[in-house]
C-alpha cells in the first residue's frame, strides 16, 4: 500500500540543464523542476554551467588542489577513526565516507566569524573549521560529551537530536542581524532530518525574518536504514521555496558545484538577501555508524553505483589530466593526511577519563546548593573507599 515512489535522486546526466538558465538571481530557484547542478562529472570532466561557473570563476587549479587535499585528509581521518573504533578505542563512529565534497566544498566558503551548527557526521566540516583532532575524538571516546570550545572555531559541538540545530542556526542568524554583522550562520543536517518539525519551523522562522542562515542538507539517501523516499516524496530542494526560502540542488559529490552553491547562498545571506537552502545530493558509502549493518537494508549494487561517483576520484582525475597532481603534490597531500591520522590516533589515545567529581562540574554557571551537597556526599562516599584500597581517585 505505502509504496514510497522513489523519484530519481541520481545526479548523472543532469548537469547540463542549468545552462539555459538566466542571470545571477536565477541561481536560487523558486518552486519548479529541480534540476541538479554538476560542474565536475564522475570522470573528472569539467562541465560548463553558465550560471554557476560565475561563482567559481576565480578558483584555479591550485584552489581545487586545496579542496582535494581537504577531502583526502577528511577521508583519512574518517578511516583512522573507524579503525580506532574497531580496536575498541572509541565506542562509536559515524563515517562520512562519500560526503567529503559536500562538507569540504561548503565549509571552505565560510569566514572565521561565521558560525556553523551541525549534526554528528560533519567531521570534515569540523576539520575545515580548525577543530583540533583530539578534540574531534573526545565525544566518541566518551571522555567528554563534546570536544571543543565552539567560540574558538565558530562551530557548535554536534547536535545529536536530529534537526534541533537548525533552529539554533536561525536564532544565531537573527543575532547577527541585530548586531548589524555580516556574519552568517550555517545549519548542516541530513535528509532524514527534513521530516522533523524543528527543521520545518526553522524554515518558517528564517523566512519570516530573512535571517542570514544557510541550510545545507546533505541528502545521503539514508536515515539509518530508511531510504530518503520515506521522508520526502519530492526532491528535498523543492520543499524550501514553499516556505519562501529559495533553494538549490547540487551534485553533493562535486566539490566545485557545492562550492558555487555555497558561495551564492553565503553571499545572499551576507548582503541581506536572507536564507537559502542547499540540497547536496550525495551518498553515505559506509554504515550509518560503526554499529550499523547496512547489508540488512541495501544492495551492494547500489553502493557500487555510487562508488563510481566518488567525490575524491573525480577531482583526482581532473587534476591529473590537468597535470597538477604530480609526485610532489601527491606526496604532500599524503603527508598531511598521514599527519592528521597520526594526530587522530595519538590525540585519541591520550584522552583520559576525567576526575570522578567532575561529573558535577559545569551543570550550572552559578552556585547550586542542592548539587553541591550531592557532590560533597559523593566525595565523602568515594573517600570512604580510600582507607581500604585507594579506589575512588579523588584529587
Amino acid at each position, binding site marked *: 500500500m505505502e509504496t514510497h515512489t522513489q523519484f530519481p535522486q541520481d545526479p548523472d546526466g543532469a548537469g547540463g540543464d542549468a545552462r539555459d538558465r538566466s542571470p545571477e538571481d536565477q541561481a536560487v530557484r523558486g518552486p519548479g523542476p529541480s534540476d541538479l547542478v554538476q560542474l565536475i562529472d564522475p570522470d573528472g570532466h569539467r562541465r560548463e554551467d553558465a550560471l554557476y561557473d560565475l561563482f567559481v570563476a576565480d578558483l584555479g587549479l591550485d584552489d581545487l588542489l586545496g579542496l582535494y587535499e581537504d577531502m583526502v585528509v577528511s577521508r583519512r581521518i574518517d578511516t583512522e577513526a573507524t579503525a580506532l573504533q574497531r580496536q575498541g578505542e572509541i565506542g562509536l563512529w559515524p563515517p562520512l565516507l562519500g560526503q567529503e565534497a559536500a562538507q569540504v566544498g561548503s565549509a571552505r566558503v565560510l569566514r572565521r566569524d561565521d*558560525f556553523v*551548527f551541525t549534526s554528528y557526521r560533519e567531521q570534515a566540516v569540523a576539520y575545515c573549521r580548525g577543530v583540533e583532532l583530539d578534540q574531534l575524538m573526545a565525544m566518541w571516546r566518551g571522555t*567528554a*560529551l*563534546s570536544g571543543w*570550545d*565552539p*567560540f574558538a572555531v565558530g562551530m*557548535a*559541538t554536534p*547536535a545529536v*537530536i536530529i534537526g*534541533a540545530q*537548525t*533552529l*539554533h*542556526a*536561525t*536564532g*544565531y*542568524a*537573527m*543575532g*547577527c*542581524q*541585530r*548586531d548589524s554583522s555580516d556574519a552568517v*550562520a550555517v545549519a548542516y543536517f541530513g535528509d532524514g532530518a527534513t521530516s522533523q*518539525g*524543528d527543521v520545518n*519551523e*526553522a524554515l*518558517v*522562522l528564517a523566512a*519570516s525574518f530573512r535571517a542570514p542562515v544557510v541550510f545545507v542538507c546533505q541528502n545521503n539517501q539514508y536515515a539509518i536504514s530508511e531510504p530518503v523516499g520515506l521522508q520526502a516524496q519530492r526532491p528535498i530542494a523543492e520543499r524550501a521555496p514553499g516556505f519562501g526560502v529559495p533553494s538549490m540542488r547540487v551534485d553533493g559529490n562535486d566539490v566545485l558545484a557545492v562550492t558555487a552553491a555555497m558561495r551564492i547562498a553565503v553571499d545572499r545571506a551576507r548582503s541581506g538577501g536572507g536564507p537559502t537552502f542547499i540540497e547536496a545530493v550525495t551518498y553515505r558509502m559506509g554504515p550509518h555508524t560503526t554499529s550499523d549493518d547496512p547489508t540488512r537494508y541495501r544492495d551492494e549494487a547500489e553502493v557500487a553505483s555510487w562508488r563510481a561517483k566518488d567525490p575524491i576520484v573525480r577531482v583526482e582525475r581532473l587534476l591529473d589530466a590537468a597535470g597538477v597532481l604530480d609526485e610532489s603534490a601527491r606526496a604532500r597531500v599524503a603527508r598531511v593526511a598521514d599527519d592528521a591520522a597520526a594526530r587522530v590516533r595519538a590525540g585519541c589515545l591520550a584522552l583520559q577519563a576525567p576526575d570522578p567529581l567532575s561529573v558535577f*562540574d*559545569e*551543570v*550550572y*554557571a*552559578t*552556585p*547550586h*546548593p*542542592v*548539587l553541591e*551537597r550531592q557532590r560533597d556526599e559523593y566525595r565523602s562516599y568515594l573517600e570512604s573507599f580510600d582507607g581500604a584500597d585507594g579506589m575512588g581517585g579523588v584529587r
Partner: protein
Amino acid sequence: MTTLTLSKAINTGLHHALADDDRVLLLGEDIGRLGGVFRVTDGLQAEFGADRVIDMPLAESAIIGAAVGLAFRGFRPVCEIQFDGFIYPGFDQIVAQLAKLHYRTRGAVRMPVTIRVPYGGGIGAVEHHSESPEAYFAHTAGLRVVTCSDPQDAHTMIRQAIACDDPVLFFEPKRRYWTKGEVLEDLPTDPLAFTHARTVRSGRDATLVAYGPLVQTALDAAVAAADEGVDLEVIDLRSLAPIDVDAVVASVEKTGRLVVAHEAQRSGGIGAELAATITERCFDVLEEAPVRVTGFDTPYPASALEDHFLPDLDRILDGVDRAMGRRSSMPSSTGRAEARTAATTGEEGRR
C-alpha cells in the same frame, strides 16, 4: 515605591531589563502590538522596537530553539510561552538543548535564557490553560525553576532571572496577575536572592510551604488556623529547582511538622521532592509525616470542577490537621467546617 499589579510589576521588571542591557530580547507570540494576551509586555515593543521585542511565528520549539541560537551569539533572550499547556511543543529544545548546553560544552557556552510561563488554574479557562508543569522542569538538571507570588517578588525575580547566567523557567501565577502590592524597584545585591525561600509568616506549630498562586491561600489558611490555635509558619519557596532546603529544614527543626501545597498533580510533584528531602534531613525532629495538599492525579479538569481540583483554604487546613496529628478528613471526624468557613476570605472558601 509604587503600587502595581503583579503583571505590571513584571512589565516594569522587563522594562528595566531591556533598558539596562541591550543584549536582552523578548520573544513570543503576540507580545508585540498586542502586548501579550495578559498584557505583561504591554508597551515594550513600542518603546524598544520590533528588533528587541519580537513577535514570533506560532511555534514554541522555534521560540526556544531561536533563543538557544541567540544565546550562542551572546544575547539574553526572554521567551514568553502564552499559557502553561503550550510549553510542551518546546519541551525538547528546553530539556535536550537549553538545559544541557552548558554541561555539554563544559561551561564554554552559557545559556542565559529566561522562559516566562503564565501558569496555574483558578481562572475558569478551557483545557491546557490552567496547568502547573513546574515539576517536569525541576526534574531536569541544568535548569533553574522559580515562581513568584506577589508584585514585589515578581518585579525583582524577573530581573534577577534575566540577569542569571543559567536558563531559568519563570512561572507566573496567572490568577494573581491582578493582585496589587507595593513595589520597590531596587535590586538586592545577592544575585541569587531569587532562589532563596522567604518566610512570609513566622509560627511555631507547623511549617506550611507553598509557592506561586498558593502563597496567598496559605497565608489565609494561617489566619484561619490561628483562630483555631494553630500557629503556622508559612514559607514561600520561590525557587523550585534548586529548592532552598536549608530554609525549610530550619523551619521544620522548629516546628516538627510540614505541609506542602501546590496545584500540580501530586505524584512526582514538588511536594514529593520536598517531603522526601525534609524527611531525609529532619527525620528525627518530625512529629508526623509531611503532608501534601495538591491537585489530584487527574488532568486539569473542566473549569466547573476546578474548585475541587485546586487546593483551597479548607483543604490546606485539612492538611494542617493531618500534620498536627488530627485527621479531620477521615470519615469519623466531622463538624469543623463551619468554624473554618467563617474564617475564610470568601475568594478562597469552598462554595
